[in-house]
């Protein structure tokens, strides 16, 4: 639906990426999308249609909290902060990701 060429990603991966970019500090929704876009060398484009539902889900899970702050454009907006539970979840998902990734790699290498 967006105008950009899109690289769709499963919602599990999106959650992992959101948690990961929040590890280095609080960000608002737009900044999360931007940061993922930039850090992926502009390969990954986060759809707003999936970003906000994912954020709501993460809020419900208690992995992040929202707090009011002032944006770079001087506007009141919510910033998201990783909670200890979120940090734990991120560690778990990272190691799981590594494990699966390694498994896939070894299949790709040897098969």
């Amino acid at each position, binding site marked *: 639906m967006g105008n950009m060429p899109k690289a769709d990603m499963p919602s599990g991966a999106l959650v992992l990426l959101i948690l990961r970019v929040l590890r280095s500090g609080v960000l*608002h929704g737009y900044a999360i999308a931007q940061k993922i876009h930039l850090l992926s060398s502009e390969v990954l484009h986060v759809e707003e249609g999936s970003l906000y539902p994912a954020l709501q889900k993460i809020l419900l899970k208690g992995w992040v909290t929202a707090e009011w702050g002032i944006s770079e454009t001087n506007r009141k907006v919510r910033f998201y902060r990783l909670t200890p539970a979120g940090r734990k979840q991120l560690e778990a998902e990272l190691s799981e990701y590594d494990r699966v990734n390694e498994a896939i790699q070894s299949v790709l290498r040897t098969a």
Partner: protein
Amino acid sequence: MNELFRRVRYLLQRRRFDQELANDLDFHREMADRAGSPLRNTLQLREAARDAWGWTWIDRFAQDLRYAVRMLRKSPGFTLAAVLMLAIGIGVNVAVFGFFDLMVLRPLNVRDPATLLRFHRRSPQNYAFAMPYPEMAFFRDHSRTLSAVMALNTTKVAMEGEDKQIDAAFVTANFFSELGATRRLGRLLDPSRDEAPGAPAVVVLDQGFWQRHFGADPLVIGKTIRLNDQPVMIVGVAGSEFSGLSMNQSAMWAPLTQQPYFATGSLLLTDFTANSVRMWGRLQPGFAPKASEAELQSLAAQLRKQHPAEIWEKETLPSDPGGYAKSMMIGDRSGSGSESQGELIPMIALVATLGLLILAVACGNLGSLLLARGAAREREIAIRIAVGAGKSRLIRQLFTESLVLALLGSIAGLAVGWAAQSSLMRLTDSPAWLNPAPDWRVALFALGAGFASAILFGLTPALHVARQRHRATIARQILVGAQVAASCVLLIVAGLLSRALNHALSADPGFAYQQVISIDPGLGRHGYTPARAQTYMETLQARLRALPGVESVAQAQSPPLGRRSEIAGIDIDGRRMRVQVNRFDPQFFQTMRVPLLRGRNLVRGETHAAVVSESFARAASPGQDPLGKKSFVGEDDTVVGIAGSARLVKIEDSDSVEVYLPLTLDDLPGTSVLVKTSAAPENLLRSVASAAKAIDPNTFPEVRLMKSEFRQKLRGGESSALAVSALGSVADLLACLGIVGVVAYAVSQRPREIGIRMALGARPAHILAVVLRQFSRPVAAGLLVGVGGAAALSGLLRGQLYGLSNFDPAAYLGAIALFVLTVLGAALWPARRALRVDPMKALRHE
């Protein structure tokens, strides 16, 4: 867990979180605009994000609900018809369930009803729902699993200034305190005061009796009245909400230990031979009913060592939950063989089946109504589909409307059921403590019935309408057929039942009752030995025979139509039979005008002989001569004669079978005397009563006209026949309403076709035939299924309920004729509208 809390917080503070989300998205849009990649519809984004909270369904449901209420308010006629139909269907079932709840599920208004147990005696040969007082006392004194034992003996007492004897109950003095009864005035019975040896005689009045008889005078407390000629002081009045433990409302309660004071010579407190009291126990905390039963069984075995003749071999004391009205309905039956089951549950099951059928008919009607309405809402539905409503959303919307209807119907049905139940209970004089007000179980039942009906009447039409298949002829025809079938079953079964009852009630009961007086001197209550009773009985019979206008006199163990009856359960060639056992002297057949068909009469003093009724002979040994065979009831007795069938105990039971055994000396203290008069028996009542009283002034003989007993029995039967017919009429009415609706709809849908036919010169009869033809097949199919269903149901019922004939052509034909006529009338009424169609207008229509 935390997640659940957060989710609930999102529900409760939805507005705030929604605004925050909106702010997020607005900001995102601003930033995206700056970056030159404008954002799509933020409202849609917001909705998608909100979905994650998991509360969307509530919003949608509220929306559907608002819409449904608006739609129903827009067509008040339809809403009213639908709610009325549901109110009748649900109301009938609420009344039936309410009655079941009152009898079986709702605990009595007594303290801690869950730990109350009612005990009865059982052995491989015998059972009794009452036991000797000393046996009860032995259990009371030795049981460690029961914290209290209560006993009850209901009787009649003569009160000064009263012609009729009054229902009274002798109870253990712990009765009131143990059951947590409230007093209205004065005090209730007290074990320490009223059970002490030599305690003055006291009595506690029932509030209703106090109001009727003493004009609610508070000064009666402390007054002395005479009961059975003995002075006794009124010490208190029990509150009317106190149920006691017996179904027939006692006018007063007195301590059991004082019973001999009122019945001179009574051996009740020491006699092991008579089953005189009903026993309840309260479980000690921590014990199960089974533990108590086991304990009482071993206590009975101990007691048997001292009383080997009276305590039965292998006697057990099974218990029933005692805190429910059902345990009162057991009464104090006794008999041999296996216990006879009560008729309460089969009766309720039957009425419940009929009630459910009525609900099914009501649902069928509503289904057709909704289908018709769906066709009328074609445009609205089409528009909603056009603007993007999905099928599932539409079905949900339509079903929500049905749910709202069902909820309204449940509430109205609850009111209808309550009204029906309480007026029925007022008609039948049920005791004041039986409160017909619905409790949570009944309310829940009404809601459940409403929900189930919503599924039944709402889902199929919703599916059809949402799929835009409004010309759902097949569905409509199936609905009509199902309605016809269900109403047909109802009408036929109602016809069968009321005819069976009426037949049993109007047919000759097989004995003459119009000119018979029964006298129960209650000798056993006054401690008469068999020998003394024999002298008394002979004197009484001689004096009665000497009275002018007396034709014949007989002695009977349990007089016809009386409260007492003896039932034997026997097995003949593997078939169970319940036999009414009657013990009489040889004059009985002549006195009651029961014909002796073959063989000979019983001879005074003989044993091992029995006369059986013709109905018994037919049932026990079909196609064989029963004379000289065993009757299987008494101890190896031989059948010496066959008498006419007489329904001596249950006049409504045309299947009743009797065996007559000779009276033995031991039976005499419990027997009654029957007097056949040559003229109107009323004139002899007084002289018969004084003749009996003169022999022993200490006794209080109960003298009754058999024809008034008979009339009383008839009334009970007539009211059940009336109730069943009322159910049948309700079903018929509902079916007619349904047919009216469906035909009216069919006519309204085809004005063009009718107009063309009329314009081309079709005759009225032809047009009616065209309109009604589409219903002939479903009605015929429904009738067939209905007749089959009724036959199957009555076959089942026959095993449970007396007097129901499986094949009663009059009932079948009558019900079908009535049904066809009413349905035809119901169909013709709206169909006439078709004839009034103006061809010109009809052709311009649409």
